[in-house]
């Protein structure tokens, strides 16, 4: 039953922990961690902590809470690493843990944002970037503000797709939704961001 899933792992194991060339860098670190190398997991944390943190911020208002949840997700990943059969899938597996953990927290605390409700998470608007600073930074700040106005599930899909570079199939597996739902959410979320940016443009009189 487990044989096909273990194939990639065994290939790497036979190669003394070095990942084969077509596997992502994290695959070798996953194997080394499974073999008891603690420094390998430290490398994994360094590689992914900001990615998980960024993803958690799509659902959580405050940075401190987001950091606490990120910590729990990474700890959970470490203690469940033996369940990961395909090391090359570590990234999407980690986001799955984060997504499930957030979903459980939201369900338990009944803090789920209502569908259709616009959210305004202040962390997306970088207060350290005043208007007089470079226009590129100003634009980023406005894009973050527009992202914050999306529905939570749209925000998550865009972060996974456009910032993390995951495929539609990986996103569908992480969020446990059909492929067509991912496709539709990406399309309409981008349109919504453009609408918000254009409306800000009209209000502020700036060029995008």
């Amino acid at each position: 039953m487990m044989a096909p899933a273990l194939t990639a792992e065994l290939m790497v194991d036979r190669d003394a922990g070095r990942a084969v060339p077509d596997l992502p860098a994290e695959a070798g670190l996953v194997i080394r961690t499974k073999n008891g190398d603690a420094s390998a997991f430290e490398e994994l944390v360094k590689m992914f902590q900001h990615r998980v943190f960024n993803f958690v911020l799509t659902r959580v208002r405050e940075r401190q809470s987001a950091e606490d949840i990120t910590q729990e997700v990474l700890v959970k990943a470490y203690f469940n690493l033996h369940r990961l059969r395909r090391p090359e899938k570590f990234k999407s597996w980690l986001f799955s843990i984060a997504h499930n953990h957030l979903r459980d927290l939201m369900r338990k605390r009944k803090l789920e944002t209502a569908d259709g409700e616009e959210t305004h998470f202040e962390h997306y608007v970088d207060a350290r970037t005043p208007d007089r600073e470079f226009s590129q930074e100003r634009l980023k700040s406005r894009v973050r503000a527009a992202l914050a106005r999306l529905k939570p599930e749209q925000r998550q899909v865009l972060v996974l797709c456009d910032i993390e570079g995951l495929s539609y199939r990986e996103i569908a597996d992480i969020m446990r939704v059909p492929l067509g739902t991912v496709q539709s959410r990406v399309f309409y979320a981008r349109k919504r961001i453009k609408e918000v940016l254009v409306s800000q443009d009209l209000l502020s009189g700036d060029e995008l």
Partner: protein
Amino acid sequence: MKCVELTELLGALADGEIHDAELRAQMQAHLAQCASCREEYALQVEVKGLLAGLGHEMPSPFLLTRVLGRLGSRRVPAFWNLRLAYAGAAAAFLVVLGAAGVLTVSHSQMLGVYKALPVPGAERGAFAPLPSILPDDEEVHYASFADLIERRHADARELLRARSQWEELDSIVRVLSSEDGEEAIYKDLPEPDEPAEEDENTG
């Protein structure tokens, strides 16, 4: 190809997610002659580029240390340790008690059941080999009823261990996510007449 058939696929086209070569060619041909769809496609590409340029919000530099600290010592505040230890011990006691009860009650009954069952080509007995109750691909067969019980006990212990680990993580997340964060662990419990503070940290 009509615009309505195409529109929602434009995001996927911008992401390189149209894997059907024929469909991709049809879409490109349509884009070449439809200004409205070209505009929509350009929007998708533009916003994708803007988001890709955002980069990541960075967590505190102490996060790495905190994570590694949790892995190294699995330090859990004494209060939670005790509470979970009592809960775990109680659950384990109940499982053992239940299993012992089942064994005591059903052992004599099983003798009768197995004697009553027709087992062609095999001797009739309380502990005759049982057929596998797992899917075929597991290829696990129990040597005896006692073996089955032992395996079920092992499964129960594993479930208890997993549950205990989950509860531990969950409790710590709840405490650490409260307004006072880790400090809340060390605080005295509020007086009975003090109003409870609402948790507004997440949402």
